[in-house]
């Protein structure tokens, strides 16, 4: 049997579990946020440069693709923030019991949805 190296065990070797899915999602959102920080830096640079560069950047952010990227960034941010707090609690040695890990996992998902929805209601309608 070809045994895989560690992380590629998900679809075929392990049954789906919310806990491992959230763990993978923490990494994916972390990578997304790291890439997003390049765009944030770009936005800061365009602000400092002003003129046409800012106008072009601003038009891109206000476009559908720009808003979609910003929406994705906000989901990734809120998820990584909430799940990061969950990780910090684990670092203090708490919440390791399986039912607690499941409960905090669902809480993280719920908090992500609530924070994202509230934020975008504010951005779009306030």
């Amino acid at each position, binding site marked *: 049997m070809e045994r895989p*190296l*560690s*992380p590629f065990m998900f679809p075929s070797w392990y049954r789906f579990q919310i806990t491992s899915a959230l763990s993978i999602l923490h*990494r994916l959102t*972390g*990578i997304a*946020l*790291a890439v997003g*920080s*390049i765009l*944030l*830096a770009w*936005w*800061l*640079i365009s*602000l*400092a*440069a*002003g003129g046409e560069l*800012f106008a072009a950047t*601003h038009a891109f*952010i*206000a476009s559908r693709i720009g*808003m979609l990227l*910003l929406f994705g960034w*906000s989901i990734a*941010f809120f998820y990584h*923030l909430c799940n*990061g*707090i969950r*990780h*910090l609690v684990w*670092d203090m040695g708490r919440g390791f019991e399986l039912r607690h890990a499941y409960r905090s996992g669902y809480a993280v998902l719920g908090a992500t949805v609530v924070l994202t929805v509230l*934020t975008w209601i*504010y*951005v779009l309608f306030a």
Partner: protein
Amino acid sequence: MAKSQPLSNSTALRDETVLRRVRQLGSAHDGLREWRLQRLTALALIPLGLYFASSILWLAKSDQTTAVAWLSSPVTALLVILFMLAGLGHALVGLRAVLLDYVHTRARLVAASLLVRAVVVIVAGDSILAVLKLFLGR
């Protein structure tokens, strides 16, 4: 190393003498500094990230004058610089952890780590310069 009682392979992991013989961080050699940096920046990023995220989502649709005025205030300038530094430091540790898991040859790992480090340093430098330019030039 002093000769002690022979270790049976099946119990080696649980044998106290093995644990006691591990010096410092054992075979990992390093990582404690990164571990602490990751947690420290994570703690700092809770307030800094919430501040920055709410600010840019609020500014997303505003014009340049509003955004420049926001960034020219000393408190904002400081918080944005701290956010970028903490965020990029956190990203550096995290991305390196991902590379360590998926890049299995030494040369590629070193090359990828250096590349990530270079990008992070450039992005950090750019952001700080941009904020300073607006702050000092107001």
